[in-house]
């Protein structure tokens, strides 16, 4: 991170914008109206304020295919790249009427026949046809997902930076593991370290999960680690918009680990190697689910894999989307967060999450955080 607010690297943002315009071309979308921050960042390269959680859809960025122009809601030009001139910025507004007037005033909007949005609300489903009276409103997210999924080398580099910070902060949180420690304290140590390493935005905030504990329980209820417990870390940061994630599990008291815990680690290692073998271009997404079956392990509640990038990326692999997983194939250039998680009958869990770059050759591991071993 720099000491001033800068737009994303020019090569990076140019490559991304070109991909977005190609996606518009392929889907015959004349105008994109984007509400999701990751999509706006993708096409503009402009950092805006990070907030946690889902955000309601509202137009905040517009791309016009005919002119290639990008328009953005921002009341200032700090961090705005040079190719977005002042007249393409629109100040923050609370007034839908002002927002519609902005949209109406954008060159190329009046002639649009197909307008893509990345989500919708009932309110904007009523309002946007007032601006795009003769246009068909379509879902642009699939086209954007396809554009975002395959990473330019500069994007892989950005993900590596995020992973490096996540791993450095994880190391400090791991060092704070001891009997009596709470999940909250470990999350705080992680966040503090993340910020000292220059990144102030987490990808996930349930950083530490102590198992088995008096399960099930919710985070933040004051539960503390016992000597026989394990701590599963879900460590992720968002740096320059890109998510870097890594998962590791450490025993609270290594001297207290017996054969059952060692067996969990052995199982997670076996599962991991099967998962990694599934990360090849052309392989179906559900190869990752099959790896769990082949290892004889139960599939965890959260997705087994998801794409890393700006926001969420394809694939998202989970049994709830098994038909999709059977149909879709992995693509070279995708970066996956792949999760191996095994549990025992006591409720102890060993989590291992790695970031994997799918390549035309061997899958490349982007994560390098140490694992606990005896």
């Amino acid at each position, binding site marked *: *991170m720099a000491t001033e607010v800068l737009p994303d690297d020019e090569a990076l943002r140019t490559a991304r914008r070109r991909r977005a315009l190609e996606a518009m071309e392929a889907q015959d979308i004349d105008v994109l109206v984007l509400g999701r921050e990751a999509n706006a960042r993708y096409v503009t390269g402009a950092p805006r304020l990070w907030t946690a959680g*889902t955000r309601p859809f509202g137009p905040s960025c517009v791309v016009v295919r005919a002119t290639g122009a990008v328009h953005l809601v921002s*009341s*200032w030009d700090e961090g705005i790249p040079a190719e977005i001139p002042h007249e393409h910025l629109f100040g923050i507004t609370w007034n839908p009427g002002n927002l519609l007037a902005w949209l109406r005033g954008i060159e190329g909007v009046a002639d649009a026949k197909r307008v893509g949005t990345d989500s919708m*609300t009932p309110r904007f489903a009523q309002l946007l046809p007032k601006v795009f009276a003769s246009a068909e409103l379509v879902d642009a997210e699939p086209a954007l997902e396809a554009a975002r999924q395959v990473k330019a080398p500069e994007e892989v580099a950005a993900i590596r930076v995020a992973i490096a910070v996540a791993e450095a902060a994880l190391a400090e949180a791991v060092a704070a593991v001891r009997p009596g420690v709470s999940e909250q304290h470990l999350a705080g140590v992680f966040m503090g370290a993340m910020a000292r390493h*220059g990144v102030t935005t987490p990808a996930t905030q349930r950083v530490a999960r102590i198992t088995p504990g008096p399960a099930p329980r919710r985070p933040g209820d004051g539960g503390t680690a016992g000597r026989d417990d394990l701590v599963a870390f879900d460590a*992720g940061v968002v740096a320059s918009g890109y998510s870097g994630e890594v998962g590791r599990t450490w025993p609270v008291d290594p001297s207290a680990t017996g054969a059952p815990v060692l067996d969990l680690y052995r199982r997670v290692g076996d599962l991991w190697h099967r998962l990694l073998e599934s990360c090849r271009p052309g392989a179906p997404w559900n190869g990752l689910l099959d790896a769990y079956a082949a290892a004889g392990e139960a599939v965890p509640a959260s997705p087994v894999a998801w794409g890393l990038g700006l926001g969420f990326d394809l694939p998202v692999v989970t049994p709830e989307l098994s038909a999709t997983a059977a149909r879709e194939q992995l693509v070279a250039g995708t970066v996956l967060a792949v999760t191996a998680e095994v549990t025992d009958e006591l409720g102890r869990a060993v989590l291992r999450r790695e970031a994997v770059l799918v390549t035309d050759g061997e899958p490349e591991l982007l994560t390098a955080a140490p694992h606990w071993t005896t």
Partner: protein
Amino acid sequence: MPTVTVSAEPDLGRMQRDRLDRLHGVMGAQGVDTLVLLGNSNVSYATGARWPLSDPGRANVERPVAVLSIGDDRPHLFTTHPEVAQLDLGLPADHVHGPAYLEFDEGAAAFSRSLGDLVPATARIAVDELTGPMRRAQGVLFPGGDPVSADDVIGAAKIVKTPDELGFLRRALAITEQAIAPTQVALAPGLRQTELTGTFLRAAFDLGADANILDPIWQVMPARLAEGPWTTHGDIACPLLTTERELRTGDVLWVDTGISYAGFSSDFGRTWVVGTDPTPRQQAQFRAWRETMDGVLSVTRAGATGADLTRAALAVHGERRPWMDHFYLGHGLGIDSAEAPFIGTDLGDAYDERQVLAPGMVLVLEPLVWDDGASGYRAEEVVAITEDGWISLTDYPYDPYGD
């Protein structure tokens, strides 16, 4: 006369029962049979579910979904952790479901089957978001016709806070202030903005915060507007993002941050000076700000309109509106970090006239004083509206400003 109280021992179960009563009341009044909620804060409001919020990207995929129907005294929750929902929220087994992946056609199809089992085909449904797959499946998902906006229902239900809600909100605000205290102590020349974030976040989690809700702001303000970034309106650029910039003696910092706790969002705003005392001119800014805030607070009570508050702010210091042009003089707080009522926005004076304060509403008031050449002063007060005035929900000093 009913009085507004802030529960010292807020109770989650009672809070949720009150919320469901309100939601059902508003749904009845608006002719809505079923709410389908995707937004994190709306789901949290309707179900009481709490979880540490993720980055919006991951949050879009992992989000829990809530369904609440009129005539059902419990919400349904679709989540990756149904067993936690059952235990923590006391939901019956038939009201908890596996996750709904509404970013995918397959997920939307599965959800429409579930919804079809829960809701009659003729139901009038309100929803807060329509993902692309939901739009493609709209006829199946909403056979009773196009869904209406759930924001109108949630907005009407949540705008007045119950004693339990005020109790939890005050805890969220207290955690924030307790985490700010060591952060302010650490403030010194040579420190980086990111290090302030680190100190604040570490303390906030230790104190029980569930999550950080925005990238904390420690903006170094320019002495003159002309030295700041270009803006669309010629007004102040704020909030500008935190970097590894080193703080220097005399820097004026505008601080703005918030956390979530028990499903409540906090808000905190102050002005600090790095490594030295404010100059007499800067102290005068603070006094002017205090006068403005006192002027606004003097008219703040149930029955007052938003326009009464903006007029009071203008009456103190005249020609220039003493708040940020792209924001507001005040906003609601609680379930979201900025929610209705909004006062002093570009929705205009007529809108402000229609915003009538009611007992139990919460306002964050954030006037500022800009003094071109010597920067300016900005701070926030959080108050709960009462019949005859307001109750302060915060208790943090203005150091290094004031006596």
